[in-house]
């Protein structure tokens, strides 16, 4: 019983370490003054008002949402098709191909960013919107392939054979039989890809140029130059969105 108590106390300490910082900054985002320490002299919503202004915060947020959505769409289509192909029986060298596809997860992001920057400089894609979407698709697509592949492992292949036997074309069978059954996996993969892009800052710094300011870049520069409660207000909003996404993913898994 003594061991159990030690485990419980340790768990509480670790929960404090893991969640404490995320809770400790929240009240300061409602501060009436600009310094970042307790006790707070008063409360106000001025920092939330500030981050809801069009520039720079809402502009950066909008850009991040658009880049994130487009790269997610691209990653989901490419990744789902590839995962479906990879999990077919008799796919040649599927282990090797999977290793190629997930390598953007393993290569350090700063290395990917440098290579992409050199390549995009040749192609004229540096500081362009499409360049950023492409680079974020590369980073997000492994998550789609992994999530969809693992969902497909529970997919019963006989359903597909039955569809073929009843005369369905492969494309028709995919959209009416396979896709509805793996939809949860595809949505989960898409969420991973979106979060990857939405939180990405290294590639955005390297290839974004002055034009493509994303929300993480805006936050990075804000923290680096002069951190004020408006960054904490934006952080609080993002934390809320994160919790909602987690709840949504949890519900998806339960279904």
């Amino acid at each position, binding site marked *: 019983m003594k*061991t159990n108590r030690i*485990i419980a106390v*340790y*768990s509480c300490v*670790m*929960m404090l370490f*893991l*969640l404490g*910082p*995320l809770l*400790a*900054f929240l009240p300061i985002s409602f501060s009436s003054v600009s310094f*970042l*320490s*307790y006790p707070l002299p008063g409360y106000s919503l001025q920092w939330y008002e500030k981050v809801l202004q069009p520039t720079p915060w809402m502009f950066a947020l909008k850009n991040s949402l658009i880049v994130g959505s487009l790269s997610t769409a691209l990653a989901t289509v*490419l990744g789902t*098709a*590839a995962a*479906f*192909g*990879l999990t*077919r029986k*008799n*796919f040649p060298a599927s282990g090797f191909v999977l*290793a190629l*596809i*997930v*390598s953007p*997860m*393993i*290569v*350090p992001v*700063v*290395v*990917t960013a*440098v*290579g*992409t*920057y*050199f*390549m995009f400089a*040749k192609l004229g894609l540096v500081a362009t919107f499409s360049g950023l979407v*492409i*680079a974020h*698709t*590369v980073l997000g*697509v*492994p998550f789609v*392939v992994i999530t969809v592949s693992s969902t497909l492992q529970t997919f019963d292949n006989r359903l597909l054979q039955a569809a073929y036997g009843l005369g369905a074309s*492969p494309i028709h069978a995919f959209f009416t039989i396979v896709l509805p059954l793996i939809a949860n996996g595809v949505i989960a993969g898409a969420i991973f890809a979106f979060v990857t892009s939405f*939180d990405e*800052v*290294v590639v955005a710094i390297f290839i974004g140029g002055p034009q493509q300011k994303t929300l993480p870049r805006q*936050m990075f520069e804000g*923290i*680096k130059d002069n951190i004020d409660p408006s960054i*904490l207000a934006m*952080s609080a909003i993002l934390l809320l969105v*994160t919790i909602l*996404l987690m709840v949504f993913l949890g519900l998806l898994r339960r279904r």
Partner: protein
Amino acid sequence: MTIAPILLCAPLLVFLIVFFFAPLAVMLSYSVRNSEVPIVLPNLSKAIATWDGLGLPPASVFSALALDLKSNSDSMALGEAARRLDFEVPGYRALVFKTARRLQADQASTSGRDELTRIDARWANPRYWSALNRATASLTPAFFLAAFDLKMDDLGHITRVEEDRRVYLDTFLRTFQIGGTVTLLCLLLGYPIAFAITVLPRRFAAALTFSVILPFWTSLLVRTSAWIVVLSKDGVVNSFLTRLGVINEPLQLIFNRTGLYIVMVHILLPFMVLPIRSVMQGISPNYMKASASLGAHPFLGFFKVYLPLTLPGVGAGCLMTFIIAIGYYITPALVGGAGDNMISFFIAFHTNSVINWGMAAALGVVLLSAVLLIFGTFGRLLGLSRIVALK
């Protein structure tokens, strides 16, 4: 029937080849190629190839250089070439600009050895010519040598660079040391967390799992700014400790190595906990019961039976944590001190600030090789699917 799966995979593979593998190949080529000088000094590059590299080159080489510098009209390209030469011999940049300016102002056509040495006596020094020779070869080891604080001297021997310019070896060592320390701290803190999740009552375990996963999903920058608030001089931790009377002066907890360790451990802990937890959840409690019924003390049972069974999860967690840690850029830049730069900092510095692409590429290739080597050695042992099926 066999071609369809390949066709489904093809679009993604082509996309990755063009936008991921080709960029890595471009980086690799930049790390060994000499392009700046031959573009600006085409005649010289041709002429110097015939020189045996001993003493001073023949007069034709001098004339070729004078001709190239005189006819140069692209000052930006000349700047890049001058910077490349400065990388070989400090001060070369100024010499190139001075010589080009004087040659272009001087209308007399008696170019060649006399004119160059009259403009600057350094042109009579073989050192500057062997640097030119090295910078015009189509492939160069200079950037890779520099990545290890080495250089090619005028006689073609590999030597260490001057003491005050040795930065990269130390930085690589520091990168691996920070990565190793963070991995070890994550293992020491994370292993008991994973164990607790598997043995605690259901609700308590769910709450603990939630507190591991929430930071995992939260934006890196949100977590970083949260820690800056918590650890700063008048932050939560310092004011709490001061009020308790534990300390009189606030502790320096951030913008130094301590802060870097705290924040990196917080960020990377989930990468350690989640794979260990998934292995632990697959271990039947019957093993421990069996070892106890055979008379083993719980401690002996833990070390002899339980711990070895969890090693695949430990391996996957350590591998992922270490690999992510040594590539870190954002966190050291925001919460580290001046002496805590990791190798990513120099990669970014050479790409975005000083524009020495060859150097950025060589450092990138070294970091990439280290990661692939570690991954190739240990990843094979553990199996790719265990390592990447994290989230």
